[in-house]
């Protein structure tokens, strides 16, 4: 059964190698990725009456779904997922229409043929006011075709306890080098995608490795990143995957420096805990709506994407979750909105230029190299398990 399906998929995809370059983002030009050819929705039809969503906690709340249901008659059934992997698994069950995927899940879903390209003309609210840095990125725009509608973004920042460190550390070296003054009190994000953070550090400090994109590592570059992670392992106090655990570690004094999100610092509610973006730059998560390739509720899905791209709705989601909204028109709507945008650097493209959005590593090198094969997420996962050995 499965074999047959796969054969059909690869047959469809084999000939479709469109060269990119039509996207607004310059650096993905020339890159082509093999993806299954799935038709896009041509024109809006009648609403199907329901919409099954896989989402991050806080993205789908009655405060804004009620109005949507009243307008369209589409009943919203949300399902909260805890990790990107869980989202991918859930989407592959075929029971869901739309997902709020981060970039590390999005490209996997696109390449796997689980989601369909989008007809942006049917989403009028997607347009002028979407933050420049969230348009046309490779995690949700492949071969010039858009697959995702941006929701919001956030950076992986360096959080520090200023009682201990004094000022803000200028460099990530406090979490990577064994002579760190905070050895044993360092925290790191517990997921394979964290390998990219090592790559970002190496891009700055070891230019001879020639890393151009932290998600596009050949075997040697991956090995260098893993070596750095193994070195870091000796000074790690705790790896975190549960936000509550990370917060209690910072508040409880187990952790002095390490990866964090702005929203976690806010929840910790301690004066002495601060965040900074060190000189090497960082990684970050950019979330978008992606529509299942087998959805039965495609009109409701499009209506939902349009509705949640509206400045006020997009802002409500961003404020509820604690991230920078994709639609920056929201920022001007009120003083409170502006304060939120400032806190999360929503309009600060200079800030986000230093942030590499989470992207699933695939065999095709995302930095445009064609002479080598890059390491896939599968290899990242296996390598990640060797770090903590």
């Amino acid at each position: 059964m499965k074999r047959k399906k796969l054969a059909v998929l690869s047959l469809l995809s084999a000939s479709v190698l469109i060269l990119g370059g039509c996207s607004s983002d310059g650096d993905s030009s020339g890159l082509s990725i093999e993806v299954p050819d799935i038709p896009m929705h041509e024109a809006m039809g009648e609403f199907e009456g329901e919409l099954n969503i896989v989402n991050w906690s806080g993205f789908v709340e009655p405060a804004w779904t009620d109005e949507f249901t009243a307008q369209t008659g589409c009943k919203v059934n949300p399902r909260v997922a805890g990790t990107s992997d869980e989202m991918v698994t859930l989407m592959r069950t075929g029971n869901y229409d739309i997902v709020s995927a981060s970039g590390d899940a999005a490209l996997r879903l696109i390449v796997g043929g689980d989601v369909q390209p989008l007809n942006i003309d049917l989403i009028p609210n997607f347009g002028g006011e979407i933050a420049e840095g969230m348009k046309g990125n490779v995690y949700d725009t492949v071969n010039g075709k858009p697959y995702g509608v941006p929701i919001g973004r956030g950076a992986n920042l360096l959080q520090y306890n200023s009682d201990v460190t004094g000022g803000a550390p200028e460099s990530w070296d406090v979490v990577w080098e064994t002579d760190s003054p905070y050895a044993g009190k360092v925290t790191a994000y517990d997921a394979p995608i964290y390998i990219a953070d090592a790559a970002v550090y190496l891009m700055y400090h070891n230019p001879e490795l020639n890393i151009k994109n932290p998600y596009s590592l050949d075997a040697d570059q991956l090995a260098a990143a893993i070596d750095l992670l193994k070195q870091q392992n000796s000074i790690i106090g705790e790896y975190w995957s549960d936000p509550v655990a990370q917060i209690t570690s910072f508040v409880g004094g187990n952790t002095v420096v390490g990866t964090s999100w702005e929203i976690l610092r806010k929840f910790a509610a301690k004066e002495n805990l601060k965040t900074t973006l060190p000189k090497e730059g960082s990684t970050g998560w950019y979330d978008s709506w992606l529509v299942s390739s087998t959805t039965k509720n495609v009109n409701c899905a499009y209506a939902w994407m349009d509705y949640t791209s509206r400045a006020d709705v997009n802002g409500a989601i961003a404020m509820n979750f604690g991230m920078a909204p994709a639609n920056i028109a929201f920022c001007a709507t009120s003083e409170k909105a502006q304060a939120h945008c400032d806190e999360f650097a929503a309009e600060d493209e200079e800030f986000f230029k230093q942030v590499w959005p989470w992207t699933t590593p695939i065999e095709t090198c995302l930095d445009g190299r064609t002479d080598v094969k890059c390491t896939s997420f599968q290899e990242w996962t296996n390598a990640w398990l060797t770090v903590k050995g």
Partner: protein
Amino acid sequence: MLRLSRATKAFLLVVVAIVLVFMYAPLFILILNSFNESQISGWPIESFSTKWWIFAKDYQPIRAALLNSVLVATGAMIIASILGTLVAFALKGFEFFGRATVNLLVVLPIALPGVVTGVAFSNTYSNFLSPAGFNIGYFGMIVAHATFCIVMVFNNVFARLKRMNPHLQEASADLGAGLWQTFRLVTFPQFRTAFVAGALLAFALSFDEVVVTIFTAPPGVDTLPLWILKEMARPNQASVVNVVATVVILLSLIPVYISQRLTQERQ
């Protein structure tokens, strides 16, 4: 009374004290933290409040998770009680080739790590059953729980059967009672307390289980432990976990009380 030197007795008493402190101090800290006003647990507690108790009282997801836990644990308990008792009778009444293997098979599901059991079931469900068009869903979780609960009922019933007088059943048969009648009127009353204690243990084991549940719970279904685990991802209401944990501790007094009564009844 045992003749032991004063020093030895003192040493034993110290060990007992250490064990008790070790077992109860963490629970005590946790219970106190359910009254912590802060979102984040900590020590010492700066200000006390009942706001998380009030918040938890009307919080729907907790009720849904509790209901799921009770349903799954009840289902698992019923299945495990029947299967565990059957095995106990087989091993008690018969000497046969493979007896030790049957014993091993009953113990295996609890002895193998939960993550293996969970992964094995989820592998069967998602890589074999669902491609075959069979979606087991909610029942899959009950099946998995029942499997590792069998041993609890088996142990209790088997231990009691070993101490029972087999002649009573023979006498009953001699008097013309059928197997079912003998079981109902003679055998069952003798192991009833062990049976209830075993079933109670099975219920508790299932109610508390989290690792197997992580891998076998269908999308969108949370049991109480699963809900607590997921709550670790929601920093804005972290303290509500302490409230639920305190309630779980308090609820656990009920089965402990019942099994205590049962043991006393036995003696």
